[in-house]
């Protein structure tokens, strides 16, 4: 946001630093959502052309077995030989009519792809988020408290290692230790085969395994779901937890130097209380903002975790669909990710507003 207003109106009664409250919450939500549209449009255009200048789904699927003439004929039939721009408007027309299409590489409606794989990714991210929060926030606070002493140094090194080590390497180590070595946890997947079979007997299944297992009340199945989730959640959680740790530490330290902390100190408030009460809430606002973005990025960025642990989620499928040049599927997933990013931004803002009285509406 531009700072023009803030700096040029000579110290007019202090304005809220975030945004000027305008027209109430409803209007704000509306504007926020309207802003998603151009983003989605840009993404859609970008994805279409990027995917299509690099090939078409047919060549991807059949390039190794058809004669060039046969292939050309099939491409013509599917309309891939028309100018890209024509195909683009064709596609756009479909989208505008609400037709997101069916994937080429597995003949599934895009909506189904989104619910199935989206739910898988959502589940993974939620588990990982729990791990990351449990690790990152308390450890970050400890690091801030013991600032520049050895616990701080150890924690920071661990945090950096957490996000310096590629997730596939961490995943491999975890698998070797806990699955192959100790045999405690399954190697990969979201469920054992038998678990999948019992799951498939559920009427009206939700795409969320944990929910279904709970609904079924089958403790074995629940255990199976949880056991499968542990390693992927830890692998992704360590990565994100490292980032959270750094974030919490930085902001806690930053807030501790604020004058209102000094002011509270001058009235005899204890150091411990300064950290846990006075500094925490103001520090939470930037923390929540960044965490929100992080979660949004995790939703699309868990490709490597998903691949390593056989977790059929959005990221993994997106990579697969890309290889197959299945631009319909890619398009759908990317759009959903954009909406998720926008929604998480929005949620973050609302949460921040709940904490920060200055941006309330």
């Amino acid at each position: 946001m531009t700072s023009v207003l803030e700096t040029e109106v000579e110290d007019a009664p202090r304005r809220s630093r975030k945004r000027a409250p305008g027209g109430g919450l409803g209007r704000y939500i509306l504007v926020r959502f309207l802003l998603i549209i151009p983003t989605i449009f840009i993404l859609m255009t970008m994805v279409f052309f990027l995917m299509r200048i690099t090939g078409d789904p047919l060549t991807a699927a059949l390039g190794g077995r058809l004669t060039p003439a046969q292939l050309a004929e099939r491409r013509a039939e599917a309309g891939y030989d028309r100018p890209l721009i024509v195909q683009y408007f064709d596609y756009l027309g479909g989208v505008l009519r609400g037709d997101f299409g069916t994937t080429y590489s597995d003949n599934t409606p895009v909506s189904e792809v989104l619910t199935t794989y989206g739910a898988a990714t959502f589940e993974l991210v939620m588990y990982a988020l729990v791990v990351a929060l449990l690790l990152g926030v308390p450890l970050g606070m400890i690091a801030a408290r013991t600032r520049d002493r050895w616990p701080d140094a150890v924690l920071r090194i661990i945090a950096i290692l957490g996000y310096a080590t590629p997730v596939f390497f961490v995943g491999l180590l975890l698998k070797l230790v806990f699955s192959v070595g100790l045999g405690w946890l399954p190697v990969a997947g979201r469920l054992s085969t038998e678990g999948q079979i019992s799951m498939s007997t559920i009427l009206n299944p939700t795409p969320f395994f944990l929910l279904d297992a709970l609904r079924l009340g089958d403790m074995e199945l629940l255990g199976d779901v949880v056991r499968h989730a542990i390693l992927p959640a830890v692998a992704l959680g360590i990565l994100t937890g490292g980032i959270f740790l750094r974030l919490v530490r930085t902001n806690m330290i930053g807030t501790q130097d604020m004058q209102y902390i000094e002011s509270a100190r001058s009235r005899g408030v204890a150091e411990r209380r300064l950290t846990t009460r006075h500094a925490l809430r103001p520090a939470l606002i930037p923390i929540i903002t960044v965490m929100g973005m992080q979660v949004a990025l995790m939703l699309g960025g868990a490709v490597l975790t998903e691949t390593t642990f056989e977790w059929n989620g959005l990221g993994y499928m997106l990579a697969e669909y890309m290889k197959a040049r299945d631009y319909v599927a890619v398009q759908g997933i990317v759009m959903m990710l954009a909406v998720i990013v926008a929604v998480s931004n929005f949620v973050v803002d609302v949460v921040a507003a709940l904490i920060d009285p200055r941006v309330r509406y």
Partner: protein
Amino acid sequence: MFDAAFTPRRRAVLISMAGVPVLLSACAQTTEDGGGGSGGSDDGGGGTMTVGTTDKVTALDPAAAYDNGSSTVWTQCYGYLLSVAIGSEDGRPEPDLAESAEFTSDTVYTVTLKEGLTFANGNELTTEDVKHTFDRQLTIADPSGPSSLLGNLDSVEIVDDLTVEFHLKEPDDQTFPYVLTSPVGPIVDAEVFPADAVLPDNEIVAAEAFSGPYNITSWKINELVTYEAFADYQGLYGTPATSSVVMSYYADQNNMKLDIQEGNIDCVWRSLSATDIADLQGDDGVTVHEGPGGEIRYIVFNFHTNPYGEKTEDPDPAKAKAVRQAVADLLDRAAISETVYNGTYTPLYSYIPEGLPGSGTQFQDLYGDGSGGPDADRATKRLEDAGVEIPVQLSLQYNPDHYGNSSGDEYAAVKNQLEADGLFAVDLQSTEWVQYSEDRVSDVYPAYQLGWFPDYSDADNYLAPFFATENFLGNHFENAEVDELIATQRGTQDPAEREALFVQIQDLVAEEISTLPLLQGAQIAVSTAEVQGVTLDSSFKFRVSPISK
């Protein structure tokens, strides 16, 4: 550990809630067959067998896909007019849903159906369904479908409820029976499948429009498919040994390998890396099954752009041929087979792989040291005689993501072998699959890797698509004599006569080296020790029916 403690209870749960009546009736059969099985799980009732794979499924509708993963599913759930018997050594089609099938005239292939055939949903399977199946393939001609295999089919005529005639364009096509076993062959229910559109997977499953040994009871594409034996199946494969089968799809072969080692799955079909297979061979808990493979790997030479090719700066057919032959002289297939693939791919010395009529040893006889090994002196002489400048600059392309990631090792080895004696300077490159597919037919690559998996197990499928003038390689190899011989063998009824023609064609092409055969992939399946009946044969198809535990 966890599995042993976990499995029996869950089985019980499974039974108690399973709404699958077939399961109980199938129990008796499985316990009989799987008597040798260890572990307490058999007592709980019908054993479910789990098969793992890394293949990908595209569609359940046979008109909509043309790939191995989908085809493997069709093999289990659809009936074919003709199929290759389990354990077949020559890969010849035999009547499956058909009672009999033969040429009744030059251009008419008549098939008679067995009596009383039905689909799993109870619909009768008649000649109307057969006609519907093939008409539909031709009508839809889905860009991603296998309809091109029916290139020689003119029309399908119903004679009566049990008799149907296939009218062909070219006479006496000996490949046609094979086509009926191919991915274009699954017979579909005319009452369920629309004539002009692809049917979504879930509707097919819901309509139980299956006529094969198995009925699909649940369908989660590329995750999990469950099969139950179809009680009224009358086809070639007979009653399945295991009534309840689960096919589990993996994204990562390592996970699949660990799962079979841990006993979480019973059987693995495609694909494991050579390292995994070597490791599993040393594991007492599992059995590695090998069978003749229909898959071949080869190097294609582009006659326009390979060294001294027609469109290069210095075109010289004789020199170009010498270069290709020198490459053939230098390759040590056995070494690649051993070091890169641990024997899971075997040396291929002719165009038709071992296990099919016509397979020969042309490249062993004509090139190298005469027994399959490399011969640098011979190559040097060949090049010097032709006046080729040494070292020859050769650009070689391979693809890292379509034929397994050992391709990198394979071509690193090829490069090393060619360069070992200073005769070649190889510029080795790799390209992502889609781009690769476009580039290779646009004369971008002078020499490049390719692999082939047959549509059906006829030797013709290794010759016509490659060396006929209108071939899929697009490498500008043209030879009128080869063209004519290919056409002749198709119309030759006598197997021995036809085999002689196969040899003749291969001799001709091996001299020119349009492509250079490298390796033949064995079919490999891995099962736990208690699993029996895994059969890998010349059909090159994986069939679940005979497997039990």
